[in-house]
């Protein structure tokens, strides 16, 4: 496939993310990366579970956590997962405008989530003086949830960068894999969150 075909495909194949060898590689490599990320988060979850009662006399999880905000955050993130599916749907139909639109919504939801999380942390620190350094539990909590938050931030930056970079020129076989992979990343973030709200928050208030 020549450069020209890649950047200006005459026809979009139905799986544009895997139409070129580069695309296939990216696709596969990213999935593998997610396999590794699974272990990464498992290590953090494991550490959290081992230390969740090590409050060192400070605040414990059931005194700390409230569920309302977490529920709202969950809704933001779940919905953003759906909107990114929509974006990929339009990508596969070669409808760049709609894809950008849905990606935009995804990003907005992501920011909403992030804002809630920041508020939550702020709240814990200032209302309860529950910090990273309070206890092993505090360290584990902020690290696990913070790592997830860090992933959200990175995902947002990534999607935004892709959107701006390609805003003018539209979809092609060179950037389709990039969009696709970014959306996989976003789903993975959601997967992790599902476990966070279950293991950290729901089990935490029990």
């Amino acid at each position, binding site marked *: 496939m020549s450069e020209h075909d890649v950047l200006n495909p005459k026809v979009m194949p139905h799986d544009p993310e895997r139409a070129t060898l580069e695309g296939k590689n990216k696709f596969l490599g990213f999935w593998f990366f997610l396999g590794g990320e699974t272990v990464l988060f498992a290590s953090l979850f494991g*550490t959290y579970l081992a230390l969740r009662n090590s409050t060192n006399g400070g605040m414990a999880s059931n005194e700390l956590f409230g569920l309302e905000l977490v529920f709202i955050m969950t809704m933001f993130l779940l919905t953003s997962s759906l909107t990114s599916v929509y974006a990929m749907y339009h990508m596969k139909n070669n409808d760049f405008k709609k894809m950008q639109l849905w990606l935009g919504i995804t990003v907005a939801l992501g920011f909403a989530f992030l804002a809630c999380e920041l508020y939550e942390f702020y709240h814990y620190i200032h209302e309860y003086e529950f910090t990273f350094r309070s206890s*092993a539990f505090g360290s584990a909590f902020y690290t696990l949830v913070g790592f997830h938050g860090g992933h959200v931030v990175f995902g947002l930056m990534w999607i935004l960068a*892709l959107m701006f970079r390609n805003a003018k020129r539209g979809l092609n076989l060179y950037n389709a894999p990039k969009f696709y992979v970014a959306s996989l990343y976003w789903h993975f973030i959601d997967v992790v969150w599902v476990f966070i709200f279950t293991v950290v928050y729901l089990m935490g208030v029990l």
Partner: protein
Amino acid sequence: MSNSIAQNRSFGAAMWDYLTTVDHKKIGIMYLVAGGFFFLLGGLEAMAIRWQLIKPENDFVSAGFYNELITMHGTTMIFLAAMPLIFALMNAVVPLQIGARDVAFPFLNSLGFWLFLFGGILLNCSWFLGGAPDAGWTAYAPLSTISPGEGVDFYVLGLQISGAGTLIGGINFLVTIVNMRAPGMTYMRMPLFTWTAFITSTLILFAFPALTVGLFLMMFDRLFGSGFFDASMGGNSVIWEHLFWIFGHPEVYILILPAFGVFSDVFSTFSKKRLFGYTAMVFATVLIGFLGFMVWAHHMFTVGLGPAANSIFAVATMAIAVPTGIKIFNWLFTLWGGNIKINSAMLWALGFIPSFTLGGMTGVMLAAASADYQYHDSYFVVAHFHYVIVGGVVFGIFSGLHYWWPKMFGRILDETLGKITFWTFFVGFHLTFFIQHFLGLMGMPRRYWVYLEDQGLDFGNLISTIGAFFMAIGAIVFLYNVVITSIKGEKAGADPWDGRTLEWSIPSPPPHYNFTQTPLVRGLDPLWIEKSEGRKGMTPAEPLSDIHMPNGSILPFVMSLGLFIAGFGFIYQKYDLAWLSLVFIGMGILLGSMLIRSLKDDLGYHIHKEDLEKEARK
């Protein structure tokens, strides 16, 4: 970029070429040089260790410095010497063995290398900046978290950075092997070295994240006041031990499996036989990889996990002897009935069998939990792991280097010098480490700066030290061999060993696009098949056409430099927050480079058919 420009170039241009290269063969050479350097450094540290232990209550080095020496020796050897040297072989050979023009992610491949190198440099900067890490290569908390100074901080950040490089390298090889195989190169036709590279990469993918998390937690504890491993804050140091060994045990198989792959290729080539029990060999490799993840707690038998956990992990560990045994016997039966030619590459492989079997046997002995209560953290363990690591991994690397040197550099290493290297190293190796089994059982714990007089340990230690110097001589002869060979070594043809696999079907060293035409693979040992049917080389799978090649880039270097700078910032901000500016600068460089990378299209370039034809006619 292309060869013709590369021919008459200045030193600066050559440097630039290497700094920006994304060619897996050059990256392989860089891994070799860097890994080789760190091997010498680690070896030098080992010599210092042995010199200190030559007699009881010696005071060649101070206690603190001794701990720095062992920590840096272990860390350097494992992360900065053995792994990179294996990556050197993988980079040099795997794409050639599967008939690929390149790896899946040339850019990331280069990034992986630079991250490793800068991580290693960062770690070693500690020597000059107030002291190296001193808590052992295992860095058990809380000793590591309370260790004063910045040594352990360098350990944490250096390994974090080079670990990221390794992870990237692993993913690259996985995708390369899955996606880039030539037509007809099915999984069950891949040479064993490629198979082991594949499984090793899988292990890297799953093992390194645990280390990443462990290192983050340790960094937070040391630099940002968290309490993961601090009992007084409710933390638990056993968490570190688990995280470290969940990574650490697979790590040792990450090291040994590619060595197994080298031996498989070397044995079959120099016996002129196909590998005996190929399918079983592949299966055993996969099984070792799989089991390798379920045994880590055998490093923790004395931690107090309880008899149930100890029993489970003991049995799981012993199970690994079975697939490994399958391999040993298949190698022996590859030799059986063969036409065995013994040269340097083969000597290392032959030396490996008794050495590694001994090491594996002591491994199984260690796996017996109730016996490990005696062995653990004694010189018996030191003996075990040097038998498997030196007798397995280092022998494997030497074997692979002698075997593939002609392919990598176009010259054959001198045979006589090769044999001298082998014999001095081999004898020295057994002298050094065999006696350590007994030292351990006679009551010498490891990581001992001094042993006391009159405890029956003097003689064994003296022997051990003498042996180590034989190894050093061997290493020096090898260096000499490399120098001599590159000055006036015998030029190698495409196929100096009557090889069996694809890498021997192309010129030595190969052109930067490897295969002018992608070969068609018709079975296991594809080149052998063609040769035994009277053909000179591989049948192409495609007509001669333009070749697509990736562009070089300086960004991987810059990104790694960014992390390197940020590393210093992270370490020194604990004294003065002003250092955080370095973090911002470094991370800025990193993120900026990433942004450039994602914003700038990089579509590579084409080598035109006409040029290929011209080259072919030359």
